[in-house]
Structures are given as C-alpha cells and as structure tokens.
C-alpha cells in the first residue's frame, strides 16, 4: 500500500512548517521519513544537505542524534529515568555525558522544571512530561526539530503553554521546525502550512 504518493517538498533552514491533514493522510509517515526512521520505497530525502535514504540504521541513528530533536504526542520519556536523566540521555549516547549534566539542568530550568529534575515521568503531569521531552529534544542543539502532535494529548491551556515554550526555544536555537498537527490554532502560528490528503500534498 502506498501511503505517500510522489511528494516533492523542500523546507528551508529556519522555517516553521506545519503538516496538516485528516487521519491516515500520511502525516506521521512523512515525518518518520524526514527523521530517517523509515526509508521510502522510491525517491530521495536530503537532510541538512545530506542524502539519507541510503544510510544504514546505525548511521541514521547517529545522524539523528546530532541533527534532529523529537517531540512525540505521547512524550515517550523513559519511565525508569528521572527528568534530568532523560534529558541527559541523548548527550550520553553522543559521547559527551560529562559536560551534559549542567546543560540538562539549564534546559530543565528553561522549561520551568528545575525543581523537579529528580522526578520520574510517572510523578509528572502530561504537560510536565512534554516539557521534559522538549528539553530532551533541544539537548544537542539540533538544527532540526520534528514534532508529532505535541499538544494532542494535552488540554488546550496546557497545550498552549507547551506550544509557546517550544516556539520560543525554537527561535532561540534557530532550528527548522516541522510539526504535525490537527489543530488550526497550532497551525496558525506556522510560517507555512503543508496539507496532505490521501498521500498527496494538496496545498502548501
């Protein structure tokens, strides 16, 4: 089954692009392809000027670690690690665990959770978990941030706080932001809207 059919898309550096579309239109698949979490059956994907379609799983993981920050709809924090350790993890995997601790604390301060750095995910509310996920996403100063319905599991007030925080941090870091969303209010903040339907870009 073809999920995406012939998409030709170019997102310039520093842009905030919102991907919208009904369920099953291929939004998350597109995001997954951009992140190198999956490879297309046909076509080519370039990330920050590099061709990624032919990279092995491990090389892709390495590239992801350096270039992409992730925010998921259901946060996906590691339940057995504290807030600070979750933020520390990408830095440790990238080999700079030692200097990472102060960076992790700095980021948690930035998302307003400095006091809760020793809490485990189960001890945090949904909004707090998503803020930890934000801190984790920015840990390695990625040039690209990919977000999959980051406010989808949150009530609108909390969602707004998280969204504002994400946009502010994105501006500070000067990263490219690609965000999948259902919500018009979220999309309205974007520089550009890409609307998918049945695997095709119908508007951008």
């Amino acid at each position, binding site marked *: 089954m073809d999920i995406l059919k012939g998409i030709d898309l170019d997102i310039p550096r520093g842009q905030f692009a919102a991907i919208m579309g009904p369920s099953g239109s291929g939004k998350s698949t597109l995001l997954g392809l951009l992140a190198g*979490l999956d490879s297309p059956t046909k076509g080519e994907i370039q990330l920050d000027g590099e061709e990624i379609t032919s990279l092995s799983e*491990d090389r892709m993981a*390495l*590239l992801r*670690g*350096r270039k992409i920050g992730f925010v998921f709809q259901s946060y996906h924090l*590691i339940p057995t690690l504290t807030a600070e350790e979750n933020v520390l993890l990408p830095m440790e*995997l990238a*080999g700079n665990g030692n200097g990472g601790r102060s960076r992790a604390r700095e980021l948690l301060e930035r998302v307003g959770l400095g006091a809760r750095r020793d809490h485990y995910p189960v001890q945090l509310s949904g909004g707090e978990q998503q803020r930890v996920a934000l801190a984790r996403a920015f840990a390695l100063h990625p040039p690209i941030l990919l977000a999959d319905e980051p406010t989808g599991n949150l009530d609108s007030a909390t969602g707004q706080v998280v969204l504002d925080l994400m946009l502010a941090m994105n501006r500070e870091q000067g990263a490219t932001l690609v965000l999948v969303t259902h919500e018009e209010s979220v999309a309205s903040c974007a520089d550009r809207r890409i609307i998918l339907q049945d695997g095709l870009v119908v508007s951008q």
Partner: protein
Amino acid sequence: MTPEILNTAPPLPWASAFRIGWRELRAARAKFLFVILAVAVGVGALTGVRGFSWSFRRMLLKDARTLMAGDLSARIFGLPAAQQQAVLDQLARRGVERTWVTETVTMAAAEHAPDPLLISVKAVDPRAYPFYGEVKLEPPGPLGEALDSHTVAVSNDLIVRLGVKVGDSLRIGGQEFRIVGVVASEPDRMTGTLNVGPRVLITREGLDRTGLITLGSRASERFLFKLPASGTPGVAEVRAILKKAFPEATLADYRETHPIITRGLDRSTTFLSLIGLIALVIGAMGVASAMHGHLQQRLDSIAVMKCVGGRSGQVIRIYVAQTLLLGLGGGLLGVAFGTLVSSAFPSLIARYYPIPAAGGVELWPAAQGIAVACLVTLLFTVPPLLSIRSIRPALIFRRDMEPEAAARRHRTLTAPFSRESRPPLLAGAAILLGTGVVAATLTDGGLKLALRTGFYFTLALTVGVAALAASAWLLLRGVRLLSGRAGARLPGALRHGIANLYRPGNQASAAVVALGVGVMFTLTVFLVQGALLRQIRASAPPGTPNVFLLDIPAEQRQAIADLIRRQDGVERAPDVTGAVAARITSVDGVAIDRLPLRDYGRRFLRTRSVTGLRERPPEMEILRGAWWKPEDHQPLVCVTDEAARILNLKPGSAVDWEIWNRKLHTRVACVERTESLRMSGRFEFLFNTGHLEQFPAIYYGSARVRPNAVAPLQRIMYQRFPTVTVINMADVMQTVEEVVDRISVIVRFISAFTILAGAVMLASSVAGTRFRRMREVVILKTLGATRGRIAGIFSVEFLVLGAVAGVMGSLLASGFAALILRRLMQIEFHFDAVSNLAAVLVAAALATAAGWAACFPILGRKPLEILREE
C-alpha cells in the same frame, strides 16, 4: 557518501553504559528484585548443593577413615627389610605418621576358669593407635593411659567365657596381665583380620613379654598410616610408594574400607554432581525467563533511545551492562544464600548426627558461583539482546496510528526457544554450548571427564528442549484442530482459554518448553534419588545381622535357634546356614597349584567353606550370567566377583572340587556381588541345591540383636553351648548403618532443596508472563468480560499448558533417570507411574496457581490504569 560526523562518532564508553544501565535498575527496584531473586535462587541452589557435597564428602571420608583407624593400611608378610625400612623413614620425614599393629591367635587362661580360651590378640602402640576414631573402654578412659606392658583390655565375651572381671589377672603366653577394662568398641574391627576368638588388646611391649612372636609364627602384621593434614603427599602418592617398596603387601586406603561405604560414596558423589548441574539449569531457566520478561518491558525505552540517536551497538552495550549488573547482584545474593544454607547445614541435620560447621565463606567456590551467575545470565539474554537490533524506532513513532505495527513489534521479542524466534537459533546453540562449558567447568576430576559431562549435559538439554518444542507445536496444532471442529459446542471460558493458546503473540510453546524442562529436571532428581535411596537402604536394611555364630554342630541347630529367639533384644530371628569344607582342584582343566596365585589369592589353595542355596537372596546382585532355575540338576556354582577376578572365572568356566575325598565337577553359572552383611555374603562359592546335602556340614548363624543385649546373649550361649563362638559385630554394624543413614538423609535433603528450587522456577516462569497478561486483561475487560470469566479463561489456558508440560517433562525425566541410573550408577530402573502422574498433576496445579498469582493483582484494576502505565 558518508557524513563526516560518522567518522568521528565515539563509541559509548562502558562506564556510561553501566551508568545508564544502573539508573534503570535503581528506578524500578521491585521489578528488578524479582530478576535478581531468580538469579539468586539458581546460584544459591548451585553453591548450596556444592557446599553440601563438600561437607558431606568430608564427613563420609572421616567416617571411612574411622573404620580403618588410618588413611592407609599395609598388610605385610614378614617384617620390613632394611631397604623397606628406609622407605618408611623417608615417608615419616615427609610427615606421614605410621603405627604398627600385630594380630595373632593364642590361648589365654584365668585363675578360676576351667579351660583355656582361644583369643585374638592385637598388639598396638596406644599412644598412636587409633589415628581416627577411638577405642572405647569400660570403665571409660583413654587407651594410652590404661594400657602398659603389664595390662590388657579385653572384649566382653572373654569376660563371659572365662568368668573374670575388670582388675582380675589373665595369663597369656605364661605371663600375667591385669585386665584394665572391657573394649566396648574398636574402630577398625572390620578391616582387621577375621577375629575368631575374643579380643585382647595389648601393648607391643606386653606382646614381646609373652614371647609369642618368633620367627615364622603365624601373625598378621599391619602398618597403619596417617597422612599429613596439608594434603601432600596424597593418598595416591603414598600408596604408589608403598606398592613399589612392598610389592607383596596388601594395601588398602580409606576409600575402600567397606563395600557398602565405597559404593555409597561413589554413587552419592555422582548423584551430587548431577544435582549441582541440574540446579544450574533450573537457575539458568529462572534467569532466562526473568531476563526475557524484563527486556520485553524495555522495548519502548529501546525504541526511544534509538529515536534520540542511540545506535544498536550502544543500546546492546547498555543492556549487556545491565544484565551483568543483574547477574552480579543475583550472584552475590545467591552465594550469600548458598553459603548461609550450607553453613546452617550442620544444625539442620544435627538431629541425625553432629558434624562440625564449615568455617566461613570459601572464596574459590564463591567466586565460581558469581562468575557462573554472570555468564549464565548473559548467555540466556543473548537472544533478546540480539533482537534489539531489529527494534525499529519508527514503530514506536507510529504506534498511535498503526496498531498492527505495535503488534509486529511485540512479536519481535519471543522466548529463547520459541518457534517464532528463528534468528536466535544461533544464539540458542550458543546457550547450549555455553551451558555445556559451565557444566564441564563445574565437574570435578580430569579434563576428559569434564568434557564428557559437558557433552552429555548439552546433549540431554538439547534433546529435552527439542522434544518439548516439538510436542508444544503438536499440541497447538491439535488444539486448533479440535476447537475448529467442536468449537461452537464448548463452553465459553473453555473455548476462549483454548483459543488463547494459539492466539498470535501467545508464548504457549515457550511456556511449555520452560515448564517442561523444569518438570523434567525436577522429576529426574526425584526418581534418581528414590532409586538411589532404595539401593543404599537395601545394602544395609534394618535388621541386618550384627551377631554371628560360628561352628554350630548340626544337631544343635534347632536348639540354638530356639534359644536365641527367646532372648531379650533379639530383633531378627537367627538365620542358620550349613557350610561344607571343599577344595578346588582345577579351574578350566588347569590344576589349582599351577595358577599364578599371590598373597591373599593363595587362600584358594586351601579348603574353603561353601554352601548351597535354592533362591537368590534379594540383596544379591548378579553381575554376569544367571541364577539357576529349579530344573537345573547339574552342579552349578555362583562365585563372588572378587573370587572370579582372582581365579579368572566367568559363566561357563569349569571348576573341579574335592569334597570329603569325593570329586565334584561344576560349571560357573553366575558372578555375584553382595554388599550387605549376610551369611550368604560371606561365602565365596554358592552351589545349587542337591549336591552338598550328602556331605557333613558345619553351621553358621547370624542374628540381629540390640547392641546392649549382645553381652547377655553371649553369656547364655556360652553357658548352654560352649563350643559355639559368638562374634559381636554390633558396634561395627552400627557405624555402617550410621553412614548409610547419613547418605540417605543428605541425598533426601539436597534433593528436596533442588526440587523446591525447581518448583519456585516453574512458578516464576509462568509469573514472568505477567506483562503479557496485563494487555489481555485490559482488552478482555474493555470488551466487557467479567473478572470471573477472565479467571476462567486463564485457568483453562494454564491447566492445559501445565498438563502438557507435565506429561512431556515426566516422560523425558523417566528416560533420563533410567539412563543415569543404569549407566552412571549401575542401579536398576523401574518406571514409576505414580510419580509420573503426580508430576503431571503438580505441574498443572503449579502452572494454574502461579498464573493466578501473577494475574490476580491485575484483575482487580481498572483498564485505564494499566494502559497509562504502559
């Protein structure tokens, strides 16, 4: 093209891997405690069993040394020559102590006694003798203080027969000796020369004073040796030195004091090492199922790690580190537990007999236990660790949208042996090989033995696992067919429970294999120990004779039997056997004096006592040939294996006899071995009936008497039948029976321990599927199933699983038990239907109970709570 960052990517340092792995452990203590406990029980069983085996062996060897009163005994014919003396002195300089024991037969008289009495004199050095055990005197006192050149200690039958008492004087070889005490027990009574008369213990100086020993007199000379505690020179080395210096001497060491003890020791050692290995597998199974369950719950974390830049190698490294930490934790705890149990061991069995507690933790076995724990944990985690590679980060990313992707992801990790986990076949081979290597390492003895053990062990495990996997596959097929045919007619819970077995994602086959392996090993232990105990018990059954009557005239047979039967303390009626004096003239046509007979073998030149028997005594084991049938009328003999070895006899060999000046031609029908102490065991040649009855016979009797009733029996026997000699073996038999009891208690204890560990493992392997149950409960509840209904469904599923695992496991266990008993222990095996049935029932009940215990806490919870925890 390769992005430049890939070339500069540093590998994850082990320190970081351990740190990240450690963090996870710390966070979910309760969950990991279970894994650690599983490892600990396994390692504890292993080190505990090894600990017991050590104490047990030490204890048995100590008993064995007591029965010899030394480590080594050399019976020599004639005093040592100068060269031989030099060898003995050389050994003494190396710390080998020795003492000289002389036994001879002479007459003794007392002032008031009408007749002199034939006595068995034993001259010892009371300062050195005995090296082990103790000569108990009445009145109590050390032998060294009681005996001097003018005193003797005598056995009770001498007191009875001569009508003397302690303090009286005894005349031996024309010299007067004062009786200082009654010998109540003498450790090496059994290994000495057969004592025909009452015992008189005397010092070397005292014996010299009698002038009984002159050149050429018929005395038995024996050296007893005690080896240095340091262990060098060892028993084998000293034995070899002595064999070279005294080629004609009869050497024996503590390992061969008595056939019952030697065989008991051999068999129980084999059994204990077997148990050690089984404890290892049971422990490893626990580790495997715990680690498998653990990694299954880490799937999401692994996918997230990959999303944030973790490479497979890095993630594997983190989980290898974590596995090692778990193995180490379990190993430490297990070793502590094992040490605790083995040091508590003496007090656990203190009710049966006292042994000194082993001192502290023994470092080498402890280190070995921990290393084994880490290695086994790692080995059994190889398949799930390898499958980390196939976890794709995209799957978690998409989970919210694509449920089938999630299902696929859950199938990527399956149990080590399941059909679906084809890629880890190689890993499975690695596990088997690794376990084989561990088994070989744990085997005491040479490299060859270790390799063989490792090989057989791996083979048994492979066969067991393959058979179980095949039967699980067949079961699932069968169940599917059945429910397809009769599906709609079955009650709901039954239908769902059965359907649960073959539903995708169910690990029924893995569970059957795990449970079945557990049942297989546990029941094997049970069956082997049962047969071993029966065998050991049969070698010294309760009521084994401990009093022997020699030289009973034919006409007094009945009167003596009646007299004994009426005495107090007689536990078993006397058993009287007639013996005929017979001499071998030729073997297979070769005259007996032309055969190369040496030392003790020369006894076959003289007249031997032989007897006739119709039925095979139950405790007799036929090694070769067959016992005769009533219709065999030609003269047949059955010989002991020792006589067969010396005379080179096998079934069919011709033996010619001269009995009371008549010739008798016989054929050897069988070669036998009798380990128990019976009259029939004391004859080297048994004839079939119908050939010896025509000759005059002398009768021998044996009876079981309470030790404290032996003296009165001796007294009355002497008064009524003065020509009959009564030999009191009560103290020796008591020692032998004690040893046999010890072996039984330990074997039972260690088996029970292993079986318990096995049961815990069985329960935990079912409980390990708890994670999967959670999802099922949620789904079923969401679909509107009541708690009772879910419980019913699970019960059916667990019952079927447990029963199938039980049937397969118990069949395999019977096979392995038969193999072990026949090949390793030379014990007959009989299929035990009751135990097999019980094993099936227990497996089914255990699976249900454990499944229940695992599911019960989930049943009461709200679906959303569990979903949120995921």
